[in-house]
């Protein structure tokens, strides 16, 4: 089994009470108890902000401004949630976040798909069709991950204008594609590096071409790393604000811009409960992906990105 704990082998000698000789049952169970206690403690650390957000999203604003920010709601209400979804003011029209979901999805899906495909092809070439300077090319692609996005804003705007993509969804998809290449190539390259080259060579002797080998041999086993790459890109692109705000038009603004409009207002009344409801709502698609694909995620990371 692929995901068997390493500790299985380690604990084989110590963990089981039967082999621990003279130790009592209690003593053998104590470390397990401590283990669970530590894990639970960290669960609390990770969940605390979520608690603050959830509990505040379920109480009336008056309770929050009266100072009860850490308390459970005195009066439970789902009004902030419905407001954030369909009636909160995020612009001139009180539309809530609902219409912006579609914009985000129209942007995220092609951008994730394109950068994943490009990453897969790049990884394939860089590992199975190595040429002189392949490592250098990979290094250069990877270094692209590190440029601060604030820096590229103005030149990117100019280029999009020249390409006729300014203020459009394809423009946004293009931007996210460009800055997603580095990481997707990293994931696939490391994954394919561990893939037996003999298989590729054998197929080539049988007369299979470049794309046929990719399609028939590498792609079918790329599931795990594709999950990793998709999760990573999805999270980054879904949560991006800077590009979404700068390169969108009135009819293509993504979720994060709407969320930002909901939350940031310098001189208006701040409805914190609606803000928190909106924030959790905006994160639901990614949370959903994590919960569903979490298992494959670790399996995928295991199979690929962390192996040289």
């Amino acid at each position, binding site marked *: 089994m692929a995901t068997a704990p390493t500790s299985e082998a380690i604990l084989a000698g110590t963990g089981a009470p039967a082999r621990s000789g003279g130790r009592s049952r209690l003593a053998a169970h104590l470390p397990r108890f401590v283990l669970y206690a530590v894990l639970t403690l960290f669960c609390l650390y990770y969940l605390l902000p979520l608690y603050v957000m959830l509990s505040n999203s379920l109480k009336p604003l008056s309770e929050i401004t009266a100072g009860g920010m850490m308390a459970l709601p005195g009066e439970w209400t789902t009004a902030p949630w419905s407001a954030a979804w369909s009636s909160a003011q*995020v*612009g001139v*029209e009180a539309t809530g976040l609902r219409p912006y979901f579609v914009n985000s999805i129209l942007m995220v899906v092609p951008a994730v798909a394109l950068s994943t495909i490009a990453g897969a092809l790049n990884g394939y070439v860089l590992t199975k069709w190595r040429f002189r300077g392949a490592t250098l090319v990979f290094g250069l692609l990877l270094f692209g991950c590190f440029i601060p996005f604030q820096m590229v804003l103005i030149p990117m705007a100019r280029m999009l204008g020249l390409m006729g993509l300014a*203020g459009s969804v394809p423009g946004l998809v293009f931007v996210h594609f460009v800055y997603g290449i580095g990481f997707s190539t990293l994931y696939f390259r490391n994954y394919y590096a561990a893939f037996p080259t003999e298989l590729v060579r054998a197929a080539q002797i049988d007369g299979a071409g470049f794309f046929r080998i990719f399609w028939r041999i590498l792609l079918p086993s790329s599931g795990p790393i594709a999950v990793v790459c998709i999760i990573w890109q999805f999270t980054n692109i879904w949560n991006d604000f800077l590009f979404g*705000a700068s390169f969108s038009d009135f009819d293509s603004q993504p979720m994060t811009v709407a969320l930002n409009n909901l939350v940031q*207002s310098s001189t*208006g009344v701040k409805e914190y409960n609606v803000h928190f409801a909106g924030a959790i709502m905006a994160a639901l698609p990614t949370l959903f992906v994590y919960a569903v694909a979490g298992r494959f995620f670790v399996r995928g990371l295991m199979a690929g990105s962390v192996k040289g």
Partner: protein
Amino acid sequence: MRRLTATMTALAALGTATMGQAQDVEVLHWWTAGGEAAALNVLKDDLGGQGIGWQDMPVAGGGGTQAMTVLRARVTSGNAPTAVQMLGFDIQDWAAEGALADLNPIAEAAGWNQVIPAAIQRFATHDGQWVAAPVNVHSTNWVWANAGILDELGLEPPQDWDGFVAALDAAKAAGYVALAHGGQPWQDATVFDAVAMATGGPEFYQKAFIELDEETLGSDTMREVFDRMAVLRGYVDDNFSGRDWNLATAMVINDEAAFQLMGDWAKGEFLNAGETPGEDFLCFRFPGTQEQVIFNSDQFAMFDQAGAVSDQQAALAEAILSPEFQIAFNKVKGSVPARTDLEADALDACGQQGYAEFKAAAETGNLLGSFAHGHANPAAVKNAMYDVVTAHFNGEYDGEVAVEELVTAVQINR
């Protein structure tokens, strides 16, 4: 640079033309809070009645900085919005780039010159051309007080600095937080605005912050302004840094704090909490600035669409200055109309007082742009001054060093 911008805006015009949106206006703004957006709807409906569509492009955050970043990307990409909400020097900067449309025909027809005070025109016009339509006038030298606490302590709204300090002492002695304040640079600077005006008077303020006269900036009066800031620091609770302004307002609402120094938008928080001006809370000018109004004004600038101002832009500009919109908008925003010829009956007590004071100040030359809100000097200088005010308020250095730093900041960034 002018030519580059001109080409880009021409490109923008081409873009809008080919996209077949000639009948619409695209408006970039950061008014997304409930009341503000509802007020903008008045404008939208007005235009809708004339057959002009409204394409909404809201980008909130940082008091408009986020929107200005987006604007730069949009202009660079040749896709400039038709109309953009702007503040103070941003309007002048964009006008200097040659990017804004000339609104003179509309202004002349509607007589803007007669009804809009010169201090506001200073930002709405560039080289004698109207380039922006002012929506409102906020003023920042307000004190918001908890009426209950003042009653309990037997205090009247103080009239001068010493009186204010005495009132703060009384509140502090009674166990209240004397001054509710949020430690963010712009909030520190808002307090600084009022203190500087009260300490040195309008001429000092004008010389120091608007003319950036180095002698005045380095003067003993400025030293005293900083010393008074240090005094105020003593009345703020320990927990002030990073606090949002509205949470500071909530302290006054919740009877935890006696006073807050904040612009007139704070009123919205009181009203939203169900309080009544004059009964539950009091609004009065910062002691020593009873006659002065330190302002900032939101305006809409029109981006040049191939030379002349378009019909839609003209309609929008006219609608913004229409008496109905000016009253309807400012009623919910907490600010006052930008034109001085309206009846203020529809505004609440604080609004009426503010409007009367604004008109009086405009007559007497007491209407001055707020340094804290970018209506006294350009962004680079303003932010460099923020650094000094905030560092001093947080105790990084004393008044003497602060004065020197202020002069250096202006020298580097002017």
